[in-house]
Every structure is written in C-alpha cells, then in structure tokens.
C-alpha cells in the first residue's frame, strides 16, 4: 500500500520535466534545494528544540568554498565538492562547540552573531570573496560525463540528492538516536539522569544539520553559478526558519511544504512588488500570531474558528 502511494507521489516528480516548461523546472529545482536546507534546519529546530538563526552560514560556507576552489585554485568539481562539504562540517562542529554552551535564546543569539560575522567576512574580505560583487562565472559539475547545464538534467540531479537527503534525515530522526534527541529536547534533565549526554547529542545533531546545510549550499551554488554575501545574511537564515515554522516544525513533510511556499511567494511576489523583506516580515508576524504551530494544524484551527464553533 505504501509502495503504491510512494509510486503515485514519486512518478510525477520524476516525470515533471517532460510536461513542464524550463521556467517551472528551474523553479522546482530551487524548491528542492530550499527543501533540503529547510529539512536540515528542522533537525535543529523541530527535533532538537534548538532554534538557530544562523543556518545560512553552512549554505554560504559550502557555496563559497566550492566557488573559490573551482575558480581560484582550478580544482575539479569532485574534489572541490568533497573539500567544501568537509569544510562546512568542520565549521558546524566548531560553531556547535561555541553555540551549544547556551540553550534557548542564548543559542539563537550566538548563532545569529556567528553567521553575521561570516556575512561580514564575505563582504569585507574582498580580495578573497570579491566582496559585494560576488563570485560569478562558476560552472556546474559533470558527474559521470553527464552535463547538468539543461534545466531538466539539473532538476533530476537535485531530485536524486534531495531524495537521498530526505531518506537519510528520516532515518536519522526515526533511529534510536533520533528518539534520544527528542528526549533531550523535551526533558534534558531526565535524559541526563538516565545516563545520556545531552550536550553530545545536540552537538552531533548540529554537525549533521550543518552537513546537510552544506549539501544544499553546494546545490545552490551549482544552480545559480554565482554566489553573493546575501546568501549568508540573516534574511537567508530567516527565510529557511520561516519555512520550517510555517510548514510545521518537528514533522518531516512540514518544512518541505513551508520551504515550497516561501520560495513560491518570493518568486511570485518579487515579480510584482519590490519589497520582499517587508513581505517576509509581515508573513512572519502573520504565521506566528495566527498559525504558531504551522500551516496544517493552523488551517484546521482557522476552519474551526470560521465555522464559529468553539474549538
């Protein structure tokens, strides 16, 4: 039964480029990238109870390392990808050591400060990062001799990576380690009393989330063939966090739905209005005030209220 449901769900995703135009295929690729990113942030926010406002660090670090290695040092894509993922994971390990000295709002402030430091570096160290001009003229990799330059081939590539990511993160949260993570989120003291090490569990999760953030960053830079400091900005972190919370944190489907909505909103809204940041802020206010638990539970509640009956 689940296999049939899976096939019904997967078939249109795989076949999508055959019946959609390039514009929509490219949009779908961006959604896949945003979905991996949101899923990785959700490991922290939803399952670990660690609300990070600096997750864009990992996307940006991976993208910048890959861009620098391929352009400046002329490395091949395979090696550059390995090194950038390794570098991002190390960065996550380091940031985790600092940020996890605190929990709750302290954690949020430290992640925000750390990501702002990286953003400032990307802006100011212009002889390395090219500052406000960003790094342009990047190429996409050619895995097994298959060019990814067409919209469809890149979409399939992103789909494969996203599927692997979804499976790996699902395994992560449904494993016994995932259970202990949820335990640490809800009852850190009891977990410690039971002999678990809450700090270590959080740290491993932080590194794992950083790893997948780095993977989405690689896809991001492959897709855009360009990288700019804004991808490290608070706006970028906040968009992902909005996606996670809007969709429903602590669920596997929620962040995908939320990230899709944020991306579509951004694409369509920026066609009509210039003020994306203002819209983002308003959506934040709306979601937090009206649907604090996410869209799916929020819609149920809204429907109940419209019917006029008591909840």
């Amino acid at each position, binding site marked *: 039964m689940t296999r049939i449901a899976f096939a019904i769900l997967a078939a249109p995703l795989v076949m999508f480029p055959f019946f959609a135009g390039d514009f929509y295929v490219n949009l779908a690729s961006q959604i896949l990238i945003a979905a991996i990113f949101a899923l990785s942030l959700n490991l922290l926010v939803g399952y670990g109870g660690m*609300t990070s*406002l600096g997750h864009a660090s990992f996307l940006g670090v991976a993208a910048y390392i890959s861009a620098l290695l391929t352009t400046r040092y002329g490395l091949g894509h395979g090696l550059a990808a390995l090194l950038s993922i390794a570098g991002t994971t190390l960065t996550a390990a380091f940031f985790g050591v*600092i940020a996890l*000295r*605190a*929990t*709750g*709002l*302290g*954690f*949020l*402030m*430290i992640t*925000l*400060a*750390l990501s*702002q*430091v990286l953003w*400032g*570096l990307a802006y*100011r*160290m*212009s*002889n390395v990062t090219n500052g406000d001009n960003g790094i342009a003229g990047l190429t996409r990799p050619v895995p097994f001799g298959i060019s990814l330059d067409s919209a469809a081939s890149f979409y399939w590539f992103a789909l494969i990576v996203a599927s692997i990511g979804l499976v790996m993160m699902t395994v992560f949260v449904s494993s016994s380690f995932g259970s202990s993570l949820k335990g640490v989120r809800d009852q850190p003291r009891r977990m410690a009393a039971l002999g678990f090490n809450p700090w270590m569990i959080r740290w491993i999760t932080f590194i794992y989330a950083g790893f997948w953030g780095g993977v989405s960053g690689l896809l991001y830079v492959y897709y855009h063939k360009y990288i700019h400091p804004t991808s490290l*900005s*608070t*706006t970028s972190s*906040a968009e992902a*966090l909005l996606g996670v*919370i809007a969709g429903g944190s602590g669920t596997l489907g929620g962040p995908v739905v939320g990230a899709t909505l944020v991306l579509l909103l951004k694409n369509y809204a920026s066609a009509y209005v*210039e*003020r*994306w*940041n*203002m819209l*983002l*802020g*308003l*959506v*934040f*206010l709306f979601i*937090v*005030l009206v649907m*604090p638990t996410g869209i799916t539970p929020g819609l149920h509640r809204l429907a109940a209220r419209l019917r006029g009956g008591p909840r």
Partner: protein
Amino acid sequence: MQFWIIQGLNSLSLGGLLFLLSSGFSLIFGLMRLANLTHGAFFMLGTYFGATALRAFDGLNLWVTALGAGIVVAALGGLFERLVLTRLKSNPLGQVLVTLGMAFIISDACLALWGGDSIPVPTPQNLQAPTRIFGFVFPTYRLVLVGCAIGAAIALYLLIERTRLGAMIRAGVDDRQMARAVGIPVSNLFTTVFCLGAGIAGAGGVLGGPILSAYPGLDADMLPLALIVVILGGIGSLLGAFVGSFIIGFIYTFGTALFPELAYIILFLPMIFVIAFRPQGLFGRVGA
C-alpha cells in the same frame, strides 16, 4: 602617537554608541526574557529621523532632535509591545520571530522611504571645531558623545538602583512571579522597559548620526555588535553592557584600523573566550 590617541577616542565614542544600543537590549532581555532583534532597527530609525529633521530645519538643536526621536521611537516600540508582543506572552520563540519580522519590516520601510543612498547627519556647528588638549587635536563631537554615554550610564544606574521604578524592575528581573505576587504590575513594567530601551536606542541613533550617517543596512551592522556586547558583558547586566561596549568599541576600531579585512574575526575572538570560560558573560548572573 596621534594615530593611537585618535583611534583610542574613536573606540571610546563607538563604545559609547554601543552602550546606548545595548543597554536597552540588555534591560529588555533581563526583565522580559526577550531577545529583541528589532533593536538595531530602532537605532537606525532614530538615525533616519534625526537626519531628516536636522536637514529639514536649519539650526535645529541635535540634543532636542535626539530627545524627540527617542520619544517617537519609544512610542513605536510601546505600540509594538502592546499590540503584538503581549499576545505572545508564553511563547518566547514566537516573540523573537516577531521581533525579527518587525526588524525586516522597519529596515525595508526605511529603504523605501529614504532610498538606498546614505544620508549624512550634520555635526552641530558649535562642536565642529576640534579641541586641543596637551597639544593633541581631538574631534570635539566624539568627546561629547563619550560624555553623553557616561551620562546615560549614570542616569540608568540611578534609575535602576535608586528609584521605585528601578526597584520594581530589579524585582521583576530576579523573580517575575514573586514580583507579580506582591502586587507589582509586571505587565505595565514590561511596556515601560520596552519603551525605555527602544527610546534609548532611537536617541542613540540620532547621536550616532554625525559619525555613522544614515544608510540602509545600518541596523544589520549594529545589531550583531549589540549581540556580541551583551553576550560578552552578561545578559541583563547594566555594568556588563557598559564594560562590554567599550571592549568591543576598542577591538572593533583598532581591528578595522590595523587589520581591516580581519576585523570581524578579531571581533569574535573575545566572544569565544568568554563563552568558553564564562558562559553567563563577564558580569551576568543568569545564564541565557
């Protein structure tokens, strides 16, 4: 020698500005357990108000402008607190997200209203001439700014330690439930402190104008500095905000002057040390 003295004074004046920014942030956090990410935007709003007023009315006094902008920003902050934040009383995460959303709205509205070019704020005429002390030349305005920050610090200290309002704030910081139980109107106190913090940031924005000038992204430049100051000094501690501001003022100014590309890394080294060895900050009593 002149280089070191001038940079030293620049550090002090940046430290003073940072104190005006972070003291409010720290007070709000200490009492309300709320990381107010709108704080940088309040500061920027003050700078823009100041720039507009001072350019529109010739001969307008900078101090009056700072007071006026402080009151306007305090009123805006109060409205935000009453209309939005009070609805999210038991949801600290929601509160942070809302303040972040508000920060985006304000900074984008400033961009829409005032455009992308930076607007210089004129230095008051009677403070334009440099001051000579022991044969060294100092920009007078920066000296005055340091004086302002110290004045504000003393006023805040007296307010917190010597007045009835301050006693209520301290009670609220230490034990909110107990304070409520003995009849302190904690909810009104929240609004008062939020207005106060926003107002200081707004006035600080005007005073910082002649040095920084008003530009889009000022909020994003100032907020991380305030966060680092508060993490360094200890959340909720006025003394911590004061010491932290001047430490960061020095590190940032000398870092930018001596190693311009690495200023941001140098900035974050003291934060790492403090977090590693004293997670509650230099003068903090409570962990975040």
